[in-house]
């Protein structure tokens, strides 16, 4: 049940990412932790089909073994690209925040944005 396999490691990585998100205050490192959380789910999906005797899901005339389940791999490709998009945009927003608050410390930004007078229009 608690075997040493891809799924277990993926969930452990997921946990590490979550902890990073909770404990570290620097926004850049928070984003790194978020990236780890996302990669962990990808590892989990890929590991669903990984097996010693399977063949990669590419058909060749002389197939000796059955291919591994290709669906998780196919959907994971979309997930990787989506994670990249999220990261790039999040980094841009961090840049904009740094321009205004001159720090990447989330607690500091939180405090300054709360005390800040909102000017409308």
């Amino acid at each position, binding site marked *: 049940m608690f075997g040493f396999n891809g799924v277990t490691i993926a969930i452990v990585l997921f946990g590490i990412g979550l902890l990073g998100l909770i404990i570290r205050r620097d926004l850049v490192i*928070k984003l790194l932790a978020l990236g780890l959380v996302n990669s962990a789910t990808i590892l989990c999906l890929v590991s669903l089909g990984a097996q010693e005797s399977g063949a990669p899901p590419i058909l060749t005339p002389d197939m000796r073994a059955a291919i591994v389940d290709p669906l998780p791999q196919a959907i994971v490709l979309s*997930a990787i690209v989506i994670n990249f998009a999220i990261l790039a945009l999040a980094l841009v*927003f961090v840049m904009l925040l740094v321009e205004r608050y001159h720090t990447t410390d989330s607690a500091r930004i939180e405090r300054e944005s709360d005390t800040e007078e909102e000017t409308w*229009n």
Partner: protein
Amino acid sequence: MELILLPLLRFAFGAISMAGGRWTRAISLLALLCDAALLTRIALLLAGGARLEITLGGWADAVGIAFVGDLIGLPIAALIWGLAVAVALYTWRNELRPYFFVLLHFLIGSAFAMVFTQDLFNAYVILELLTLTSFLLVGYERKPRQIWASLRYLILCSVGMSLFLLGIAVAYYHTGTLNVVRLAAHIAGNPSASWIPLAAALLVGGVAVKAGIFFFSLWLPAAHSRAMPAVSALLSGVVIKMGVVELFRLAEVFPLDLTFTVLGVATGLLGILYAIQTYDLKELLAFHTLSQIGYLLIGFGAESAASRLGALDYAIAHGLFKALLFLAVGQAVACVGSSDVRALKLERCSIPLATRIAIAVGMLGIVGIPPFAGFTAKAVLESGVHSILVRVMVGVISVGTAASFSKLLPLLPARSTATCERPTTAAYAWLGGAIALFLPLSATLVPRSILSATWQWPAYLEAGIAVMLGYGVHRLLRGRSLGLPKRLFRVEEGTVAIVAGVLIVFALLRFV
């Protein structure tokens, strides 16, 4: 065919809008017309008794992505369209970049796709597209506070979507399918398999982050209250609802009645408490969105046909009212220059009359005063809730709604000396018309017998008592803070809350 054409056309229009130029606005009108035509056609097909089911690209059921158009999806698609029209009218005179319209097209297109899709992973991609577009729309004006709110939104939603993907992994590993219907069949065959609670908790927890459930969506108040009014209206009316739609889908797969009831009550109560505490008008509306989502969940958790229909009814009514309120309040705030209720009260004369009427209509609808659609929906929903405890909770939430909206009463009566009239009356008129039309329309959704049973004096009495009590609570609390912590809404707390929420859902499914 029509089902997939609806989102694809929107995406194509979005791609064309990327080119910019002066046709951008005309294209957005054309898109609205195309949507209307396709929606009418879908409605006619459904009315003719056809069952709209397709697998995209003509693939076999087991491998392709399935789209289904039914009587749950169509009204919500109509709501999306109605709000798109309202936003188009509201922003008619604003100087907006083509970029805004591109995002709008993509957002609405993906919302249409979300309504019809039956595939879990497809839902994941659509939800991500919705997250990204709405995230960019929240930060559109580039105010630092908006940027910070939407960054938190992105981080928490991304964590939620990762949980959702993990849930997909669990479900796929044990059943080998991503299709909701096939998944439900699998689970019906072996309802006590040990992986089911985990999969359900991960899937529900992940979507709940997007759907505005209190434990999960701690990003929501800031993002909704700091965005520009048109965007807030879309977020509340469309984006949040898409999470709710996916939750409803999941409810057909997993046994989630108790979970929904617990989450619904918690969401409703906390949303109301925070709404009573805050004096920031836009924040008030945002917290209200939470409490109303609570209603929806209670309705869907009550496991009776009437309450489910009521919840659907309420989802649409809430979308219309909340959009109206966000648009009107946004204009009032722009006129006065502050979103503090007390400042607005002092300057109330400068708010245009049409805006104040719109606020009044929205308020009455949300509080549930009889002739308005909110009342019907609420009554239908409640008629299906049988547990006494839950009914009491629903009553408490109603009282709280009235109490928090009593703060707005002083804004309404004044002679208008408005100086900043902007031609947004058309948007109000459109939404007002939709609200007026909604009464007969809801009659086609809800069976006549249930409807007539709710239009009885106990329901009127209940609504009246709730409003009175709410006003009483408002007078009682006046100016006093409830002392609820504000720091709950930071990223760290939000992440912990998501994990805690998933564990709670898991425990509910596993041990109760």
